[in-house]
């Protein structure tokens, strides 16, 4: 259609609204137009410039970001209104949202946001509405902001494909190749003109394996027994030994806790259980027992709803039961509280979708996902599950056995309150107080299971944010109801602007042809099942990549919690497919996966960089060598404690502050507080426990340098290490220096190193007595070699 013709059509189509305009009354301002042509002329001359100047920046096709779903630049758009509904009622300015908003009287939106229009402009727009809001234009809809999602097309994305065992490349026959993994790695190396690095020496390998699998350094004896074991099975035996040690679960459980945004301390407004560690210990145990990963996933979402599962598995629900919660001031009206509650539901959708699925579903709260085939309906279908789930705590004993405990606790609370009140009296009735206290004591002591631990879990109850009284001004109450709820779409993420209801169900793109509605309670169990069954291929890829990343320092996919279209493509797609396929075939066994990875020739390569290969692939994307890795804060601190001889290896239980001078336990047991992360951990890249963390950042700062130079921990452990060495090697300084190197680095000291140490001792003011050794040991602990693994 050419321009001139379309103009003619526009003129002809000026219609509906004009037609419904009431006749201008006697009270109209003199310049108010009445006839159609005059009305349009008036619009173009006076109204459009106003709209253009004050509104179009946010409410037109020229808006960078369209606000409130409202456009003011076409007739159809004006008739349709925005997210808040109809914009205007022609002829009735007082009932028109547009006019209410520009009047700035607090009844509507107070537009434009940067200040009220002049009285003249307001009068002009009011008259325009009063006269029927004539707007030239056609009835055609403007283009929708986003096109419909094509789910069939969306399912073609690589990570949504079923898993297929891959054909081995021809490189499989190469003698370097130990396992299937190596064949794929070698193929890529060759494609890029690269070749594998030599196998690392055995002392390097044993140190690497220890840190990889248990997060601790090997003792000199452990190194020796491996290095001197000529058997070809020695390596595999060591791997088995490490995978079988309880320290394996501590190391790998912590990897999971980053994803699960684990905290030891929950917010004060929740029921305090002080038993968050039961979830952490459950995770550690699950790793140690090699709980199949699909079961591991299901239990964390629905351990309370899986047939045949004992109550001792309830702590698994801590993944949801320890979720971040945000403060809700119930004196405020429901519309404010609804936003906070909606933010919490979004947090659950975000944590669950990124942790298990590697998808960023929370992006679809306000609009269809801009890149992935995830619709805002999908988001609300999942959010409904969490809107029907309540965080609470419960005992790990059957309900009928717990009932008398609950009654006794209620009674104790009541009596304690009475005691508190009596104590306020002057003089306090001592006798009566003593009597009540006896009663409390009796209840606590003789009620069976009174001290049974309470664990942070979720139950199926839906949360409804309602007015506390007759008006919003009366504040808010939070009502939990036993029946689940489906959510209305929150238009543009706003829970105070509701669209149609969406039934609870799984993501459309991951379920073919259409997702089944969840019908059991909140739908948590069905969601869990859908995740591991319908999306099992995706779930397997995501966890395989996380494990790979932890071993190599870099994933095959660089965006470990985003396997969507905006995520990175795998560097070795066939390898990832093959590993994930066989991981599922092998019963979702993580220990199987570790064996595959650390057993490979790829993993056993030296980390030394050869300049010629370095120039081809400086990032080592094609894994022609092992990456040198810096230890995270946990294995670093643990290793310092271990070599100083002060590490306490007791398992599980409540956390202790990382800074406590007496805390010599593994760092996985250091107390995590969401509001106040330990300074020591925070300095060393420990992730924010308010958020799912897909990967630790690795920073090097002067504040870390200060920690190395001055922290009590380094100073104390330097002392402990020097005492240990003095005890074990009392006389010969050279032997002691060599022993220190074996202990810390698993190797002998070079002559240069011995000389360096002796020079330091001899140059010290105390001539090499105790203090110089303490400083020397401190320096060893602070060294690069101790924090990096070749």
């Amino acid at each position, binding site marked *: 259609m050419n321009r001139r013709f379309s103009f003619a059509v526009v003129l002809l189509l000026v219609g509906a609204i004009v037609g419904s305009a009431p006749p201008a009354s006697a009270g109209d301002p003199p310049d108010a137009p009445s006839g159609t042509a005059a009305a349009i002329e008036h619009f173009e001359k006076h109204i459009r410039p106003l709209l253009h100047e004050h509104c179009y920046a946010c409410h037109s096709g020229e808006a960078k970001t369209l606000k409130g779903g409202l456009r003011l630049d076409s007739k159809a758009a004006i008739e349709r209104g925005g997210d808040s509904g109809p914009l205007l009622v022609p002829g009735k300015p007082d009932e028109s949202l547009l006019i209410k908003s520009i009047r*700035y*009287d*607090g009844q509507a939106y107070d537009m434009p946001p*940067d*200040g*009220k229009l002049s009285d003249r402009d307001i009068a002009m727009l009011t008259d325009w509405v009063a006269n029927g809001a004539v707007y030239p234009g056609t009835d055609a809809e403007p283009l929708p902001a986003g096109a419909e999602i094509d789910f069939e097309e969306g399912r073609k994305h690589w990570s949504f494909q079923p898993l297929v065992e891959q054909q081995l490349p021809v490189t499989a026959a190469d003698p370097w190749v130990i396992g299937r993994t190596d064949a794929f790695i070698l193929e890529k190396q060759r494609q890029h003109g690269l070749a594998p690095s030599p196998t690392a020496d055995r002392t390097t390998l044993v140190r690497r394996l220890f840190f990889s699998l248990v997060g601790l350094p090997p003792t000199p004896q452990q190194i020796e027994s491996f290095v001197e074991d000529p058997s070809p099975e020695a390596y595999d035996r060591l791997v088995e030994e490490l995978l079988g040690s309880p320290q394996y679960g501590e190391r790998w459980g912590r990897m999971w806790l980053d994803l699960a945004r684990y905290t030891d301390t929950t917010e004060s407004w929740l029921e305090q259980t002080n038993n968050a560690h039961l979830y952490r210990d459950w995770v550690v145990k699950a790793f140690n027992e090699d709980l199949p990963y699909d079961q591991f996933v299901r239990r964390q979402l629905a351990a309370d709803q899986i047939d045949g599962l004992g109550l001792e598995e309830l702590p698994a629900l801590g993944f949801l039961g320890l979720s*971040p919660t*945000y*403060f809700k*001031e119930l*004196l*405020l009206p429901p519309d404010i509280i609804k936003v*906070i509650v909606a*933010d919490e539901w979004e*947090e659950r959708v975000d944590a669950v979708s990124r942790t298990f699925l590697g998808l*960023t579903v929370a*992006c679809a709260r306000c609009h269809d996902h801009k*890149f*992935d085939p995830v619709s805002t309906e999908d988001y609300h279908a999942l959010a409904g599950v969490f809107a029907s789930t309540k965080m609470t705590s419960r005992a790990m004993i059957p309900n009928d056995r717990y009932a008398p405990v609950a009654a006794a606790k209620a009674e104790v609370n009541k009596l304690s309150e009475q005691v508190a009140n009596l104590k306020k009296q002057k003089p306090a009735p001592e006798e009566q107080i003593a009597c009540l206290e006896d009663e409390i004591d009796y209840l606590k002591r003789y009620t069976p299971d009174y001290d049974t631990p309470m664990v942070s879990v979720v139950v199926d109850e839906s949360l409804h944010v309602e007015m506390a009284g007759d008006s919003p*001004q009366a504040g808010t109450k939070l009502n939990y109801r036993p029946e689940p709820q489906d959510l209305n779409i929150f238009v543009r993420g706003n829970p105070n602007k509701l669209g149609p209801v969406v039934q609870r169900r799984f993501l459309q793109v991951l379920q073919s042809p259409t997702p089944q509605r969840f019908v059991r309670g909140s739908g948590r169990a069905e969601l869990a099942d859908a995740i591991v069954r319908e999306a099992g291929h995706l779930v397997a890829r995501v966890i395989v990549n996380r494990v790979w990343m932890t071993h190599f320092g870099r994933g095959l996919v660089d965006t470990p919690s985003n396997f969507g279209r*905006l995520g990175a493509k795998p560097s070795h797609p066939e390898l990832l497919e093959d590993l994930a396929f066989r991981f599922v075939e092998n019963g979702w066994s993580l220990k199987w996966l570790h064996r595959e990875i650390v057993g490979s020739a790829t993993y056993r390569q030296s980390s*030394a*960089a050869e*300049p010629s290969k370095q120039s081809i692939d400086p990032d080592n994307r094609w894994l022609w060598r092992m990456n*040198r890795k*810096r230890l995270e804060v946990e294995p670093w601190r643990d290793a310092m404690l271990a070599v100083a001889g002060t590490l306490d290896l007791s398992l599980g239980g409540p956390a202790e502050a990382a800074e406590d001078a007496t805390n010599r336990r593994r760092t996985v047991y250091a107390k995590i507080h969401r*509001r*106040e*992360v330990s*300074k020591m951990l*925070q300095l060393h*890249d420990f992730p*924010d426990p*308010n*958020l799912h963390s897909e990967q630790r*950042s*690795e*920073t*090097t*700062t*002067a*504040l*870390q*340098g*200060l920690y*190395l*130079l*001055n922290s*009590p921990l380094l*100073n104390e452990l330097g002392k402990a290490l020097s005492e240990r060495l003095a005890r074990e090697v009392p006389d010969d300084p050279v032997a002691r220096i060599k022993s220190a190197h074996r202990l810390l680095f698993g190797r002998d000291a070079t002559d240069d*190193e011995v000389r*360096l140490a002796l020079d*330091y001792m001899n140059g010290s003011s105390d001539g090499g007595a105790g203090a110089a050794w303490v*400083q020397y040991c401190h*320096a060893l602990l602070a*060294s*690069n*070699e101790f924090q*990096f693994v*070749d």
Partner: protein
Amino acid sequence: MLGAAQVLAGEDSAGDPAKQLKTHFAPRAKRVIHLFMNGGPFQADLFDPKPALEKYSGQRPEGADLRTERPTGGLLPSTVKFQPSGKSGVPVSELLPKLAGHIDDICVLRSLHSDNPNHGPALMQMNNGTILPSRPSMGSWFLYGLGSENQNLPGYIVLCPGRPVRFAELWTSSFLPASFQGTYVNHSDLTPGKLIPYLKNPTLDLSAQRRQLDLMLKMNALHKESRGDDQALEARMNSLETAFRMQSEANEAFDLNQESAETRAAYGEGHYANGCLLARRLVERGVRFVQLYYGNGQPWDTHSKHNESVKKLCQDIDQPTAALLGDLKSRGMLEDTLVIWGGEFGRTPTSENGDGRDHNHHGFTMWLAGGGVRGGMTYGETDEFGFRAVENKVHVHDLHATILHLLGLDHEKLTFRYGGRDYRLTDVHGRVVSEIIT
């Protein structure tokens, strides 16, 4: 992982806050001091006179019935008188006579507003841009975007003589690398060595420590010899050297005794005065962002005995704040140092239980000075009661956009990819209030 700033600079700062990065356009301000009146000061006592309150005293006319955190009663007039001040004649409260002398350098924003009337969420919004405890604070965005000018000091320092509510969440780097977080300093005890964590060795003096450091560096050099060019190893060695220098430099920076008696007298006494002087010393040494919380907890939260408290609070801030502005100016630093003053929200013109005022996020005052901001002006208006911002409204997002703009950063381009989205300090909002920029 890193986003805009690295792209801009054409290099990877890899989370190194000591690295300086290029801005999107020429910055007006190179450093920021944020004087945070935690608890929330009442605008109509200080910079936004509302004579109409007298007329409606005790009443609750239409428009004066907005919902805040707690129920409030009728309008409660301010007892404070205002003076037209400076050449500009901008009215300033009689409670701030010394600060009034600097009004020609100050731009009073009378039309701030935010989303939530509770302290926690409002503190979070003012600092982190959302009411959620899971977004990077503006200071960490500054460091991410700009790096630091002095690698011997932390680039982002939070001073408080005690602990503000929500504490470390207010200076978190959240999903930005941990090195961009604020360094919290409780300056109620000014003993050198206590202010920055791990600043002082418990046993070694500096020369003994230098020997130990040389030992460490030699060990590391031997280790690195056989490992070729590895930046991670090198960076960690450098961090030790920097840390060693920081021990002296930070001690020096935090040592107020190095100031002349006149300067000390000009700032006056007390934690807030010390904080203002520390702030000047720190920005002078290249610290990018200093945030000074007025006091422990939320001292400006005057739910009762409002008038009494405000007198004391103003007495406490007037001289040091004025001295800070004067000091910066006389050193030629005010032109590229942005000073921000304000709370997490304001207070109600209505009364809470007769002598108190509740939180008010509908409309409140903050002011900016220096760093490319026009002085001697007011911007925006609240309604006749001072309850709601009505004209030229400035949301906290707009404030953030403006601050970033003054620092030479485009708030829409300073992004970080996390969880599938490019995050910004201003989320999807924010308007640069260009009317207040010179």
